[in-house]
């Protein structure tokens, strides 16, 4: 589970910095009324929080099962 969550966090993050570094024009693509850059950045910020919640729930359940 930990490896999966690391992948869920790091793959989009690497892709995001990769896009800024090598293909920043992608960020200008429209996403509704705003460019893709805004929902992408805010989505990644909250993805970090989602990953922590999923890990805490999983780890607490695992520990509860063991005790």
């Amino acid at each position, binding site marked *: 589970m930990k490896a999966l969550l690391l992948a869920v966090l790091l793959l989009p993050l690497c892709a995001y910095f990769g896009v*800024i570094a090598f293909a920043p024009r992608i960020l200008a693509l429209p996403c509704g009324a705003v460019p893709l850059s805004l929902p992408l950045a805010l989505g990644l910020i909250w993805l970090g929080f989602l990953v922590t919640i999923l890990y805490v729930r999983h780890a607490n359940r695992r520990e509860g099962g063991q005790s």
Partner: protein
Amino acid sequence: MNIAQIAMITLVLLTLGITAWAARRTQSAAQFYTADHQVRGWQNGLALAGDYLSAAAFLGAAGLVVSQGYDSLVYAVGTLAGWPLLLLLLAEKLRELGRYTVADVLAHRFPQSSVRMMSAASSLLIVLFYLIVQMVGAGKLIELMFGVPYLLAVLSVGALMMLYVALGGMLATTWVQIVKCCLMLACGLTLALGVLARSGFSLTWLIAHAVALHPEGAGVLLPSKALSNPLEVISLGIGLSFGLLGLPHVLMRFFTVPDTRAARASACWATGIIALFFTLNAVIGAGAIVFVSKNPVYLNAHGKLLGGGNMAALHLAHFIGGSTLQGIVAAVVFATILAVVAGLTMAGASTLSHDLYANILRRGQGQDGAELKVSRWATLGLALGAILLSTLFQQQNIAVLMGLAFALAASGPFPVLLLALFWPGLTARGAVAAGAVGMASATLLIIAGPAVWVAVLGHAHPLFPLSNPALFSVSLAFFTAWAVSRITARQESHS
């Protein structure tokens, strides 16, 4: 007396009250360093967020949105990513293995004093650079906000941080950070709601007006030219994400909770609060572009923001709620500085008294009471040192020191800690070499880079092209750990 001064005095009295309460509960070394491991998960989460969100995160981020637009969000994404990484990679292990300092975690595997010395040196350097940045920023900010002379401002911050830490230890530091975090969140929410209310609760309207008013136009929603070098972007991402995982004042907060469950909860709380704060900052920054950046009330004769870009959030507070809200926000910024400075001093004092005095000088044979006394003297020494250095660095470009502190944290303690916890092949000499090479290379590359070589030393071209060296210094630290461990593995297994 104006609102800002009343609010500031109220906050100082509140935090001194907390210190007096905590001082009665701080009699042993465990109570001083870790609040006796009795801090709850949610409390530690708030304190972690309070420790991490400095005045730069509040005032600086809004100012960065005004000046460089979208770059502020790129920084936020990179920085926030460090928190889930901290939870997944380090938080539980820190709680399981740590006693008082990060060096204790390493000592579980490498009892050699050389490893503890390396860890203590890196912690002290990072704390010192970070402390200078905070103190200089505090002095200038308080001078600007309250009209107090720089030296007096720095002396007051130094005296208060010494009182919090020396008397109340980790318990006082924790509660000062909790109070500050709640106040900062309340301010952020008030400002963001104020911006949305003035925008008719329409984000589309807000964004359209930010684009219309910003000099970059639609470019305000895209990375700026500062992020046009691909290597710079990747290096920045690595530095921002991994820097957090080597900051001693953040890592040592995981020793204050009773168990790994609470350690996880605290990382989760901190991540949520910081994510919320970064989101609010985006709204506040956009509001500052729309309502402040072109408002003649807040501009000087040259059309620049009064007091510089860092004052954007304070001007916005004035626009939304008049001088009352501006005064309250200014006081909260002051509390923010105090809390961050107290956390840093706590980390520095622990390193001096526990790592250097108790474990290296006394070889672990010292008494609890003596160690506690040394930690209080260490706090006094750190406070005096920070005041002196912040006076010397008053006219320097302190942003370089902040970058250096983060680069050092990512390049020194982080690779050593990660490898010590997860790679059985690491040797003691490999750990020491990795820490030393990581920190030395980060320092040298920053000096040779554009931030120091060109901007400070005045040369035409930098020797090293990137402002952020993390891509190279972190890689070099990992490579050194691998290479030296391979070379010394046989010798250390025999001894």
